[in-house]
């Protein structure tokens, strides 16, 4: 049974008809054209599908699209609507990513961290991105960029 749901997506009110079995990640990518959340593991382990619901990062591969009715969803596209954020500038400066597949998730996780705790220490940064797997960088340049930004 399809249902029309309305929700805020990157600040814009959207309506879309979904069936209760549709996954948020797939609706965002395949039907709404947002490509920043990516499918890595499809089971909650890797963090590449991260989006924010009501300001908190979640794994969109583990969310039913129908659950976000009347909620506020933000993807990386929404975070950088007014250009690169200082955090992203710092990642650029430190050459933090290689293939970049993990980047949207890492950026969202650290954005969430900094909103809550503007001056995290290294351990807190590591903890915040512990659920974002990166297969290229060994994490050091990612962590350095955040440390550099908040020092």
């Amino acid at each position, binding site marked *: 049974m399809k249902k029309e749901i309305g929700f805020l997506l990157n600040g814009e009110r959207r309506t879309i008809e979904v069936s*209760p079995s549709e996954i948020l990640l797939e609706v965002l990518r395949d039907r709404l054209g947002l490509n920043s959340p990516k499918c890595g593991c*499809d089971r*909650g382990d890797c*963090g590449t599908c*991260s989006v924010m619901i009501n300001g908190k990062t979640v794994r969109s591969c*583990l969310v039913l699209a129908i659950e976000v009715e009347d909620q506020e969803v933000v993807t990386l596209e929404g975070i950088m609507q007014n250009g690169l954020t200082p955090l992203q500038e710092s990642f650029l400066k430190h050459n933090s990513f290689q293939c970049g597949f993990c980047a949207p998730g890492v950026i969202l996780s650290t954005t969430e*961290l900094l909103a809550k705790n503007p001056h995290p220490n290294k351990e807190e940064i590591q903890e915040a991105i512990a659920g974002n797997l990166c297969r290229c960088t060994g994490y050091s340049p990612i962590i350095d960029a955040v440390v550099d930004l908040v020092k």
Partner: protein
Amino acid sequence: MAIENQYEYVKAKNLDEVVGLLQRFKNAVILSGGTDLVELLKTGAVHPDVVIDIKGLDFLKDIRLGNNILWIGAGVTFSELIDSEIINEHFPIIAEMSKTVASVGIRNRATMVGNICSAVPCMDSGPVLSVYKARIITDGQIGERQIPIEQWFVGNRKTALFKNEIVKGISIPVPDKKHSGCFVKLRRYSGEDLAQVNLAILAFDDYSFRITFGAVAPTPVRAMRIERLINRMKLVPELMEKAQQLVEDDIAPITDIRATKEYRLHMAKVMLERGLNAALDRLNGGGPAYGKSVI
């Protein structure tokens, strides 16, 4: 991966509606955080005819302390436990445990009640709720039930919940003696991982203890033999050694993808010693900060 099975989705507006739906549908499942459920829906391990979303039920979001009872509603996430003043002040071991559950993105969605309803043997909530002698409060057509934690887990992924019941929350009595404790989790790397062994300890100021291991059997295991041996004794090195030997009698871990049984047994002994020492040090006002891993 898409979900093959089709089902109805209802965002419940009140508890009566949930109880009614649980009665009306043969195969109803409750959805809160969904971090376990959505995966099970994708693989087809569960195929409900209705999914009842309880995230709209505000009263399930409560963390309350009154009459020396802590109440954790079914909608409370691990992130909310970590951020709760009540939890950090009165039940820091719950915060210490919650910080080890998966990653922020999961903790923002996953609930403690969901954790004990999934009842996967390596869950982190089980041992902590065991040492606190928690009660699980359910509701359904037959009315409210209060199930003591030691009767809650009945096997691998099996609980005492009836098919047409919902868990409303967990109630935890504040221990009436001065106490402290420790949660110890062994995993392959720091950061996100499931437990190879986990352990919760409460130490009271009369030197009695409650000790529960997790991930070493289908359900959490209260280490009764060890407790009997060390209760009200001074934990001198010889006694600690005897207690560690008893680990082999109290638990019977298996070999699986995350660790061998020999490794689990060995590490359970190390964890017991470090956990007991940390709990006692904390009882005396010192010890490692909560959340700082002792292994």
